[in-house]
């Protein structure tokens, strides 16, 4: 009796093991947020792009090492006229619905992404026209030479023009006017996976595309993806620990050791394309939130210097970030064109020297100021701010911390209503110009929209403007270096660190972390 029972148990265990071996090609994946929409041009946001990348494809994309590789285009280069780029398209590609991929689809998709209701239009604002040359050649005309045009296209997905038109979604939906269209719910891309089912904020199931053009080129070992957003950090990690999911992004830093320690789980790590730093309003004559009347203490570079060396970046790394960050002295991650080790070096933590500088600047007794900080945007954002409050307190800067959700924090920066704030910046183009345009250029209609420091330097602005059309890389890089020298010596910003990305996964999964936090599951392999 007992024996038969044991045998039965053994058999069922074997059966189950066998079953899970068959299912090994299913990947259960969780991260904190869900994609916001299936319309590929309606949101310019990480998780939305990540899901879209599995089903739609851009002309060119970044691979798991963030290098640009061909996707729907096979080659791209400027023509003799430097304002016109020629893209050769991949032939023989079919959409999930069976439609052929041609130049018409590219023209359609780019025009769609440049419409007023598109969220992607800012990345394309240098494009004047998109023209079909033949079925597999497209010309992009820009308003001046734009050496970085391809960098702006890595999240620009191509839809089928016929399908989109038939479904009435020629334009990205107009949320304001109750616009609704089927492209928000359905997908017809060329990507490695097709949409099986989707419940917003709950579960999305993708199946491998049997007709994918990249067969043989990519591993394509995943046949099915079950994607579940899990917002609560502890719940997400619990799901991984209990084996309910195979891969999670956004592992809270405090839970990294337990993921690493747990049998059957591992942790992969990579430096992320995002720098965290503090901005200071140094342009105003007087600050609203400080305790100094008629003067702006932050306008004095000695004060900024003192604050810079009063930040104990190593302690933040060790305690707040649990060693999962790369302290830095410049507001750019290492992959970006223009980065050097000298720029990256951060000043030594030295309270005595900082106090002396404060004394010298006439603020020996310190001053009070409000620090605006997000509490749901970056890794341990509020924790970093709290730590900074303590550190600045040591040199007499009495900081009043105002931590808020991102929806309330970022408008303060954009409307220039903050004196001292935290910001994180990623560089999707992998070039310094992107940083300068948004963070160091004087605020104008088009540029400097995130520069809340009030810093304005016409000389620097001219140099930044020259970058856009400079085709000689060497000259351009020299200018970039000059700009960085100014930014650093003026202590325009107080850099903290570059974020480090961690993905927790089951041992059976082989997957490197992508620096932009964008997994492309066609690259994933199983052990």
């Amino acid at each position: 009796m007992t024996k038969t029972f044991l045998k039965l148990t053994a058999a069922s265990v074997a059966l189950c093991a066998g079953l899970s071996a068959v299912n090994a090609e299913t990947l259960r994946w969780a991260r904190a947020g869900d994609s916001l929409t299936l319309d590929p041009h309606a949101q310019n946001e990480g998780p939305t792009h990540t899901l879209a990348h599995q089903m739609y494809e851009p002309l060119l994309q970044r691979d798991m090492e963030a290098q640009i590789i061909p996707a729907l285009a096979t080659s791209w280069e400027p023509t003799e006229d430097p304002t016109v780029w020629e893209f050769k398209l991949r032939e023989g590609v079919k959409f999930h619905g069976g439609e052929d991929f041609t130049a018409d689809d590219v023209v359609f998709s780019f025009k769609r992404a440049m419409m007023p209701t598109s969220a992607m239009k800012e990345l394309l604002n240098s494009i004047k026209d998109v023209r079909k040359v033949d079925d597999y050649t497209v010309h992009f005309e820009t308003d001046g030479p734009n050496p970085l045009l391809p960098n702006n296209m890595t999240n620009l997905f191509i839809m089928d023009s016929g399908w989109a038109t038939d479904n009435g979604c020629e334009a990205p939906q107009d949320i304001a006017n109750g616009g609704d269209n089927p492209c928000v719910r359905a997908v017809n891309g060329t990507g490695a996976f097709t949409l099986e089912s989707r419940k917003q904020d709950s579960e999305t199931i993708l199946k491998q595309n049997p007709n994918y053009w990249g067969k043989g080129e990519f591993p394509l070992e995943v046949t099915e993806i079950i994607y579940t957003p899990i917002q609560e950090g502890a719940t997400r990690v619990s799901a991984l620990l209990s084996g309910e999911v195979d891969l999670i992004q956004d592992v809270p830093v405090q839970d990294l050791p337990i993921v690493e320690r747990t049998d059957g789980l591992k942790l992969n790590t990579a430096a992320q394309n995002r720098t965290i730093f503090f901005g200071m309003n140094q342009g105003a004559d007087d600050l609203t939130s400080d305790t100094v009347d008629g003067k702006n203490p932050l306008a004095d570079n000695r004060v900024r210097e003192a604050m810079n060396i009063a930040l104990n970046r190593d302690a933040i790394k060790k305690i707040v970030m649990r060693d999962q960050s790369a302290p830095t002295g410049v507001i750019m991650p290492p992959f970006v064109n223009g980065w050097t080790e000298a720029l990256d070096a951060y000043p030594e933590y030295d309270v005595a020297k900082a106090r002396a500088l404060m004394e010298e600047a006439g603020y020996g007794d310190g001053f009070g100021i409000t620090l605006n900080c997000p509490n749901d945007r970056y890794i341990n954002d509020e924790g970093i701010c709290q730590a900074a409050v303590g550190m600045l307190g040591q040199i007499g800067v009495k900081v009043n911390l105002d931590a808020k959700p991102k929806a309330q924090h970022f408008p303060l920066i954009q409307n220039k209503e903050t004196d001292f704030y935290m910001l994180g910046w990623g560089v999707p183009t992998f070039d310094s110009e992107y940083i300068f345009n948004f963070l160091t250029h004087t605020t104008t209609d088009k540029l400097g929209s995130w520069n809340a420091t009030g810093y304005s330097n016409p000389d620097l602005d001219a140099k930044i403007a020259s970058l856009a059309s400079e085709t000689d890389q060497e000259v351009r890089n020299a200018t970039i270096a000059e700009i960085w020298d100014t930014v650093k010596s003026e202590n325009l910003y107080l850099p903290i660190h570059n974020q480090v990305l961690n993905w927790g996964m089951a041992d059976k999964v082989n997957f490197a972390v992508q620096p932009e936090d964008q997994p492309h599951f066609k690259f994933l392999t199983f052990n």
Partner: protein
Amino acid sequence: MDNQSSNAVEAQSEPNVVSAPSTLQRWAQSDIWYSYKRSPIIIVSSITFTLLIFGAVFSALLSPYTPFDPSSLNLMNGFTKPLSTNEFTGDYFLLGTDDQGRDVFSTILFGLRISLFVGVVAVLFAMSLGVVLGLISGYIGGWIDGVIMRIADIQMTFPSIMVAMLLYGIGKGLIPPDLRDEMAIWVLIISIGLSEWVQFARTVRGATMVEREKEYIQAGRLIGLSRWTIMLRHILPNVTGPILVIATISLALAIIAEATLSFLGVGAPKTEPSLGTLINVGRQYILSGEWWILLFPSLTLLALALSVNLFGDWLRDVLNPKLR
């Protein structure tokens, strides 16, 4: 009987108070004191409650560190284990430290103070509002009664956390940013208080309607006592028992409601954390091994709410003559 009961309650929280022998004798011989002596759970919980009050009131004296003075913090003290000395700074921590190097024991004492303050003041607010409206409603009646009871109905339809979230949102908007942290506590108090006045009002109204018809009140009216004198001096003392019971249970509810709100990000601010805020922060560490950051504040909150709840339970049974 009712004066007696309120004396008894005072006596329990401060057993060493010296009062006039006659009063002392009165309650020593009362049923309540008898019942108190006979239930060990109540003795334990009232002692716990007294200790917690003591800790909260004297938090500034008792706490070994000043956890909310940023310039006194050393980040390197972060995540020190309980009963141990930090390897970098050599500081000793009884219950360990949190992610910012704050002494958990000190943060609990201060958190306890905020939690109790919010709870007690919210209940006092709810009680005064409820008692006054209940008296008016029950004694004067008519359309005033109708209006008050309709408002109470509407209030009842909204669960406390909804009321608190709505009020919190409005309060945040109306208060200038630099005062928000200070005002946040008051917004909490008002929102929790508002969601609990109805119980007081209904009870007082019911009792008032019964008392109003009694002869001694009629007599009082005849000799020309004012409405308010009758309500406050003659009717109110008759309902102190039920009010006390509701107040005790509301106190526990208010403390938990405040903790729950901190999960939704509308609780006490991190610069003035309550026990709920501390628990919400500690929640992140449930899997990571830093159990002390979650456990100790949770146990404190449990001890606080449980002792208040048990006490309220006992009080209700004792004060309800029908159950004896």
